[in-house]
């Protein structure tokens, strides 16, 4: 009753959730086999930067959301430059998009279909 089936696959959230919780329990169980000789507050927990000093983060540093995907946005800059130009903020452009879409759909419906 609570699952859905598409005819090719099936999705049962209750079973999935139970399985997820089970795997979580197993994971914690496996984790309990871990090394007990791990020492807190020693050099073991420090970051290792090729032997260099770890620079101190300035107080209140926050990696803002903008920084997260900088690389990805940079890699796609050709795409983004174009798409951002579409969203120019100019009302006339928006009306032009609408008229253009209308013309395209006319062409498709009247001539193709």
């Amino acid at each position, binding site marked *: 009753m609570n699952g859905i089936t598409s005819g090719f696959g099936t999705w049962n959230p209750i079973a999935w959730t139970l399985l997820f919780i089970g795997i979580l329990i197993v994971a914690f169980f496996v984790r309990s086999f871990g090394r007990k000789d791990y020492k807190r507050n020693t050099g073991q927990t420090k970051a290792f930067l090729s032997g260099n000093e770890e620079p101190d983060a300035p107080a209140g540093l926050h990696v803002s959301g903008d920084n997260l995907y900088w690389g990805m946005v940079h890699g796609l800059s050709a795409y983004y430059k174009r798409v*951002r130009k579409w*969203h*120019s*903020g*100019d*009302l*006339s452009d928006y*009306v*032009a998009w609408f*008229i253009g879409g209308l013309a395209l759909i006319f062409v498709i419906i009247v001539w193709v279909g």
Partner: protein
Amino acid sequence: MNVGNLPFIVSALLVVLGIYTLLFKRNLIKLVIGVSLIETGVNLFLVMLGYRSEGIAPIYTFAPAGERMVLPTPQALTLTSIVIGLATTALLLSFAVFIWRHYGTLDVHKIKELKG
């Protein structure tokens, strides 16, 4: 008198003129006029749909017997559309007033704070 297809051509012309105004004019007030032009074109089209040649207004009060009447439904549609157009125009104009207050301009190419 046969008016033929002339009103349909006029209504198409009005719609095209309105679209032209929206695309190429810069002043917000002119854009509102453009919207009104499209609306007028559509309204003219609707009224023309109900026209029958030699028809009189579809009202029974003091109507001569046996006369042809034009269709009343498109007229009702047009009236409703005019009422909506009034509200739309009033709202657009008051937005234009407030934009003038905040931005100090009515040039549509300069009102681009929201983009990207």
